[in-house]
Structure formats: C-alpha cells, structure tokens
C-alpha cells in the first residue's frame, strides 16, 4: 500500500495504544506527537512517523495529530521494508532511531541520577 492523502488540521493520524502498521512521510504541513497528552515532538515536511509499528507490529506508542492541513504519504509495512533497501532512506531512518535512543537513554540516566540524589537526601536526613 502506498497512498498520498490530504488531511485537515486537527485530524488524528495515529493514536497511542491502537494497533496500526502504516508508516507516514510528511510532504507538507506539520503534526504534533503526544504521549499521554504531553507534546513530545513536532514534525514537518520530509519527516516521518509510524516506523516502529511498520517494523514491529504493536500498539502505537504516541498519538499524532495534524497541526495544519497536511499532505502525507501512507506506506504499508511491505512497501516500508522495500524502502529500507534505498541507502539514503535507510540512513535517515537509522539516524533518526539512533537519536531517539540516545535521547531516551540520556533521560533515563538523568532520572536515575535524580532518584539517587533523592535517596542520598533521605540517607542524610536519617543517618544510620
């Protein structure tokens, strides 16, 4: 499946927790990416979303909502796998995933430091 569609501002393209296997490539317009109603990213022309579900069936881990009129390519999992053969696309995909992992790892490490600091504060308050 490969389809080019236009959607209006406010329309939801992917919903957190729902099953979906399509990959989306934005041609024009912008979208908001939210997790548990918190905005985690804004994407624009040339950027993409839905790649996790296209590679690994599972619930969407974010909701994506059009912030403007949107022109978007919808790509099915089989076509997505074929696109990964294209070196330029593959590079962009790997880099974007690597950046997400680095950011997530850094946030997890910062949260752990925070917990440690909290534990130390408790220890200081109650010396053994």
């Amino acid at each position, binding site marked *: 499946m490969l389809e080019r569609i236009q959607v209006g501002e406010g329309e939801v393209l992917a919903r957190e927790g729902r099953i979906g296997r399509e990959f989306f490539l934005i041609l024009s317009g912008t979208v908001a990416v939210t*997790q*548990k109603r918190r905005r985690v990213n804004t994407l624009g022309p040339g950027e993409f979303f839905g*790649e*996790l579900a296209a*590679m*690994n069936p*599972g619930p969407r*881990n*974010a909701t994506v909502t059009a912030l403007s009129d949107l022109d978007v390519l919808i790509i099915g999992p089989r076509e997505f*796998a074929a696109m*990964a*053969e294209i*070196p330029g696309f*593959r590079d962009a*995909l*790997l*880099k974007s*995933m*690597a*950046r*997400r*992992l*680095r950011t*997530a*790892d*850094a*946030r*997890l*490490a910062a*949260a*752990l*430091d925070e*917990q440690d600091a909290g534990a130390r504060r408790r220890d200081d308050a109650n010396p053994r």
Partner: protein
Amino acid sequence: MGNDASGERALVPSGLKGLPWFAGCTDAQLVELASLCEHLAIDAGEVILREGRLGRELFIIVDGEVTVTRRGTVVNVLGPGDYFGELGAIEAAPRNATVTATTALDVLVIGPREFDAIMSVPAIRNTLLRGMSRRIREADARLSAGDTAPAG
C-alpha cells in the same frame, strides 16, 4: 575468491550460522560477512568501550558476557548473539555507555564502512531495526511510567 593470508584470526563463515543475526543469510552472504568482520578475543575485565569517548564500531558477541554501565550504574548484561555499539556505527557521537567484559569474550567487530555494507542485507538490517524499535518502545514506556529503576 582467494584466501589472502593476513595475520588476523580467521573467521569461519559457518561460525556465524549459529548467531540469530545471521540466521536469514545465505551461505554466499555468510562468506562475504566473514570477510567484513574482525574476530577478536578479549580478556575478562577489559573495557571495550567507554562512555563519552568516540568510537564507530559495532560489536556482536559470539561467546561470553559483558555489562553495560551508564554513569556507573549497570543498565544491562549482554551475552551471545547480543550486540552493542550500534549507535556509534550509525552516527559519529560519543559512546553513551561503558561496556566491560565480565568473562573471556569472543566478539565480531564491524567498522562503520562495513556496517553500511551489512545493512544492505535485509535479514541483518531487520534484526537491527527490530531491536532498535523494541528498545525505543521499552525506553518510552519506562519514561512515561516514571519507572526508572534499572531492570532486574
């Protein structure tokens, strides 16, 4: 294809067969792969990569075990068939964790140029893409749940 007699430890293509990474590869692909990988034996206790340092190699564990630490906290233990260093292989940036051999280790080392070559093999590419997508999902889930205690 002739065998060039380098001093490097020879990698038998059939030795790659047992690794889940290469399960989907044809024999011809395994032969080519073996020529792209370096095969290293590392002693227990050696630090293979260090948080904050630059490095571009991907490592695939053939045998042995490593611990992954971030800011001094153990975040993972990896064994045969597991891999590390993929973020550096994808893009030049400082390593975001330290990896230490906890046993004698047998690893495949793949440089950035060879990494591009192995990514053109669908079975290998899919192993990496699925693994990365799983890690992103897990990290997102832990971050959104506020559950940041190390697993285990």
